[in-house]
């Protein structure tokens, strides 16, 4: 008779936003370092998006504790083998990187650009971390759905990438910045991440076997198959391929990817806790 921790909506939202923030930041870091000067707008959007999201992440984590000041108890120790402990530290460190990168993204002076690029290469490691550690945290509990397959972290990272990139492309669309080639590059990277996410998800389900029951059949199955696999991954991929030239379709696809990323966290947490 195992117990569930009661990590509900605040944690669902935190897992989702953490993925988007991490994904947006490392996409920005890659665009900044390896893309052309014209991709710098993409990088700036990524940095500026990750900053408020990670701030929100911190607030959600603290709020979920009930007594906010108890968050400081987490700062007493650093247990490097414990996802919950290093996760709390990483949110703070990553937050600092998003802040500095955001500030530096407003300058085009060569020395500032060079500094920003170098910092982003380090900060991006924390972005990858924030997007994936929540999965590793779940997979190291006693609960079968969360712990039977070894790919929860890898899956959350792929989802963080696809949702982070979708969020950037959506902002490019909304700010009317789809004329440059940054749009096409982000969409291309997003498609790649989505295909990879589908593959990881398939292997994850096979590895889970019977433990996957709470998500693949029963009450949460329509949300999982329809909301995540269908609307969240297959439909946006189809929209991107079919509507290659129509940017509005690309924006719709981005919204669907974001919804799918939310559904992934929702289904994983709530199916065994609701």
């Amino acid at each position: 008779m195992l117990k569930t921790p009661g990590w509900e909506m605040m944690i669902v939202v935190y897992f989702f936003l953490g993925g988007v923030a991490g994904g947006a930041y490392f996409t920005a870091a890659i665009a900044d370092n390896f893309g052309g000067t014209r991709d710098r707008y993409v990088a700036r959007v990524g940095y500026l998006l990750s900053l408020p999201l990670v701030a929100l992440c911190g607030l959600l984590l603290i709020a979920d504790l009930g007594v906010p000041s108890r968050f400081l108890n987490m700062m007493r120790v650093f247990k490097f083998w414990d996802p919950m402990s290093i996760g709390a530290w990483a949110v703070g460190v990553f937050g600092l990187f998003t802040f500095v990168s955001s500030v530096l993204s407003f300058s085009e002076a060569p020395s500032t650009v060079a500094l920003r690029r170098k910092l982003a290469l380090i900060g991006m490691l924390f972005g990858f971390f924030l997007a994936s550690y929540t999965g590793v945290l779940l997979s190291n509990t006693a609960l079968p759905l969360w712990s039977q397959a070894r790919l929860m972290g890898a899956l959350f990272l792929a989802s963080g990438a696809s949702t982070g990139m979708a969020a950037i492309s959506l902002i490019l669309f909304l700010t009317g910045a789809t004329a440059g080639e940054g749009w096409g590059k982000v969409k291309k990277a997003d498609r790649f991440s989505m295909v990879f996410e589908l593959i990881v998800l398939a292997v994850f389900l096979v590895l889970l076997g019977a433990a996957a029951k709470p998500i693949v059949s029963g009450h949460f199955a329509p949300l999982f198959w329809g909301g995540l696999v269908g609307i969240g991954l297959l439909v946006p991929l189809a929209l991107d391929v079919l509507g290659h030239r129509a940017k509005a379709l690309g924006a719709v696809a981005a919204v669907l990817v974001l919804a799918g990323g939310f559904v992934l966290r929702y289904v994983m947490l709530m199916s065994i806790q609701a």
Partner: protein
Amino acid sequence: MARTLAMFTDTSLCIGCRACQVACKQWNELGMEVPEWTGTYQNHAHFTDKTFRLVRFIEEPKPNGDMAWLLMSDVCKHCAEAGCLDACPTGAIYRTEFGTVDINQNTCNGCRYCVSSCPFGVVSFREDTGTARKCTFCNDRIHNGLGPACAKACPTESIQFGFRDELVAKAGKRVETLKAMGFKDAQLYGADSKGFLGGLNAFFLLLSKPATYNLPEDPKVPQRNVVTDSLLSIGSALIVGLGALLAFRGRGKGDGDA
């Protein structure tokens, strides 16, 4: 570290009087709870934030069709390799000098990671204090030379308290006696320090297989896969990162710079 202390719960001696459950509630000032219907005499169905000792009433069909009572006073196992302790990000869950596992209520921050990391579903979250709660092995009592309240109250010595090595030896002899008496499924659960979870400091003598008592046959430390999962996440990051890198390095039309 002082010599390891243990509790040995011999279920063959339990009469289901629940003196242990009440003594635990009294000593630890665990408030009243609304009872729940469990379909048997057992109450509650499982450990709660206010029930640290729980007498399980299990009905097992006999070959002749009658029902037999299996009574088991269940408690936190105080695992030598404790999932809750590994999970705790504040160091609130700690191992005492006696080898038992306790939660410091002042440093617990209510994250509930321990609740999902216990292979037995023991640790419970208490809403009013916002902290994780479980059996303390009567930490206050053992530091004053007293045994845990449950063991003290037990009228049949079904719950015994003492040094672990001595209790394990005693338990081994008891299994032999019971087998000779015809209890062919009599077995120890968690006595072997080379067995699962490094052995349990609250171990049991069962009269049937562990599954009958809703106990896992081979519980594992939840955190054993952190390294594997992290490496696979890094692999995932490399693939996704490479995809993004190739996408951004690829020249679109009209792009002359790099």
